[in-house]
């Protein structure tokens, strides 16, 4: 190994990258765009609030108080519908999935129940709804639970079954905080795999590798330079992703020594896979296809975007054999759950994997074109 030779290759790689503006933009911007898009989508879901249209046919203090209770629940933004209009027609015309109608005589029935304790006095609130809407069921469930609570209170007895929540986490984390370690792992994988495969097949196809084989550069120098370059890109891209996450979504993540450890292992594992692919795929185009074939299942099945618990059992088992799964889990263990033992466990698994594929990658890399 010669540091000057490694350095010379590193400089060439960085200059080439810097001078190819579109590639630079997409390498850096793609993960950031993902974070912004998914972060925005899921941020809304966390503070979800539904529009609710209410037609108050009773028009009394009591009915107004009911509407007020719904509003105070925090899940609804209430819009009032004039009592004069036909609510069904109104919902149709305005493409509303739910209009709540408080019947005339609501207050009267309420008084009968409260004052005279008449068990037959009741009020029927009507849901005028569109069953084809996906969110209407959620709205109705929330409304049902609000009404159930009102009914329970009116019974005058304290509830028998109560519920209490105990989180297994030291603190409550948000989806975006779960998401970011996955995107970091994925972005580093993509850059390492594609970078290695594209650059090496292109240089081989163009004959640059053949020229290099007539110079004193060794395979070790070449591979080491490649690894360093990919690590550098990974660090820059990770910093960019974290800055955006902190600035835009105010995430709370633990940044500790595990982060560089997992980035290094991620780089080694996927540069190794890239080197093995380069050996077997001759053309640059088929190399990109082969890299995609490895990357896409990895991206979706190893829990980069969503927890693997959401997948069917056999897919969860499959996730267990994907290297990216261990990077994802390891990064989450260190950045979100602050679980050093879990991080250690995952780093050991991905570490062994990275060592094996990297050694295979070195063996697979060859300079000479012919035999």
């Amino acid at each position, binding site marked *: 190994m010669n540091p000057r030779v490694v350095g*010379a*290759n590193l*400089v*060439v790689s960085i200059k080439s990258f810097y001078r190819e503006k579109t590639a630079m933009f997409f390498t850096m911007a793609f993960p950031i765009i993902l974070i912004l898009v998914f972060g925005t989508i899921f941020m809304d879901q966390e503070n979800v609030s539904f529009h609710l249209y209410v037609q108050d046919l009773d028009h009394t203090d009591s009915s107004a108080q009911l509407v007020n209770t719904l509003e105070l629940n925090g899940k609804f933004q209430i819009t009032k519908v004039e009592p004069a209009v036909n609510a069904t027609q109104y919902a149709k015309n305005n493409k509303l999935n739910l209009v709540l109608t408080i019947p005339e005589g609501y207050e009267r029935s309420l008084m009968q129940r409260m004052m005279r304790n008449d068990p037959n006095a009741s009020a029927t609130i009507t849901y005028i709804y569109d069953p084809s809407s996906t969110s209407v069921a959620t709205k109705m469930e929330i409304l049902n639970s609000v009404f159930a609570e009102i009914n329970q209170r009116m019974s005058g007895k304290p509830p028998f079954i109560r519920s209490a929540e105990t989180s297994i986490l030291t603190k409550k984390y948000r989806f975006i905080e779960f998401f970011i370690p996955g995107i970091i792992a994925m972005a580093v994988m993509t850059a390492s795999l594609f970078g290695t495969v594209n650059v090496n097949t292109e240089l081989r196809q163009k*004959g640059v590798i053949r*020229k*290099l084989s007539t110079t*004193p550069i060794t395979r070790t120098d070449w591979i080491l330079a490649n690894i360093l370059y990919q690590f550098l890109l990974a660090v820059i891209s990770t910093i960019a992703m974290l800055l955006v996450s902190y600035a835009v979504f105010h995430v709370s993540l633990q940044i500790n020594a595990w982060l560089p450890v997992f980035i290094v292992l991620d780089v080694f594992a996927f540069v190794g896979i890239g080197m093995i692919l380069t050996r077997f795929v001759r053309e640059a185009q088929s190399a990109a296809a082969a890299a995609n074939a490895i990357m896409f299942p990895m991206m979706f099945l190893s829990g980069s975007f969503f927890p693997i618990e959401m997948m069917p059992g056999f897919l969860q088992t499959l996730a267990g054999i994907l290297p990216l799964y261990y990077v994802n889990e390891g990064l989450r263990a260190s950045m979100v759950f602050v679980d050093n033992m879990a991080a250690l466990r995952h780093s050991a698994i991905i570490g062994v994997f990275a060592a094996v594929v990297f050694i295979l990658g070195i063996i697979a890399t060859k300079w*000479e074109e*012919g035999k």
Partner: protein
Amino acid sequence: MMKEAEHVIEVEKLTKRYGDLLAVNDISFNVRKGEVFALLGPNGAGKTTTVEIIDTIRTPTSGKVSLLGMDVTKKKHDIVPRIGVLPQGFSSFDRITVRETLQYYSRLFRLRDTDVDGLIELVTLKDKTQEIYKNLSGGLQQRLGIAIALVNDPEVVFLDEPTTGLDPRARREVWDVLLGLKKKGTTVFLTTHYMEEAELLADTVAIISKGKIIAMGSPGELIESNANYLVLTLQFVDEQAFEIVRKMGFEPVQDNRKNIKVRVEHTDDVQKILNAIKDAGTSLHSLDVRKPNLEEVFLKLTGEALREGPAGGRGAE
């Protein structure tokens, strides 16, 4: 023994097979120190295979190749720092400038005192030093490739088809660079399918066809021993001149520009033909008498043309 010591390349019974294909078939030759040695042959003759075995890119099936006194199959690491190679279809990093490329290769050879400016001057790329590789024309890219091959001040330079794919002007510019190397006394091993290139640059030419060397010597020797005749070309003559020459017992060939080419043994024959045309009162615009070139030698030896299409350069005269 003295002569042996002068050989920088010794090839003995070299054979290379790719499966059933016999690319190089039992060839032997030596290259002397300081000479320009050209391996001349058509595409697929085995030129590149031969040069890539000598410059350590490939390994032979059998035979012995020694370069600078070392076995190429065993001493690659000792040989590489002492040679310079322009491989066939040379290419470099697209977005790296001329100067940066030379600095990069200099570092690969672990050198600190490479005269990058001198090399740039040698291949006349002075006004392109800040240009990235991708933006250079084919001829300039090849010239940069030659400069790279010289970055370690090599004892032997291998140039595998340095002008293939270049237009005539770019080719001449590369030749100027190579003539400069020749003047400096650099040992150059060149492969080409342009006979003009071999004739202009080489001290020794080895003609290779179907994996075999079929003739070897200086361009002059090859022509002398294989094509002992003169070519008389009569330009813009009347139709009847062709008949006159044919009746004299020669075998004239007419091209579509009304030129007649005749092979003659002796200068006396030229006189006879001219006299006969003059006596017949036929007009003659101009004439040309010359020795045959390597193209014709190759044609005679192999029965095939060196490359497809118009024979280029002088062939059309």
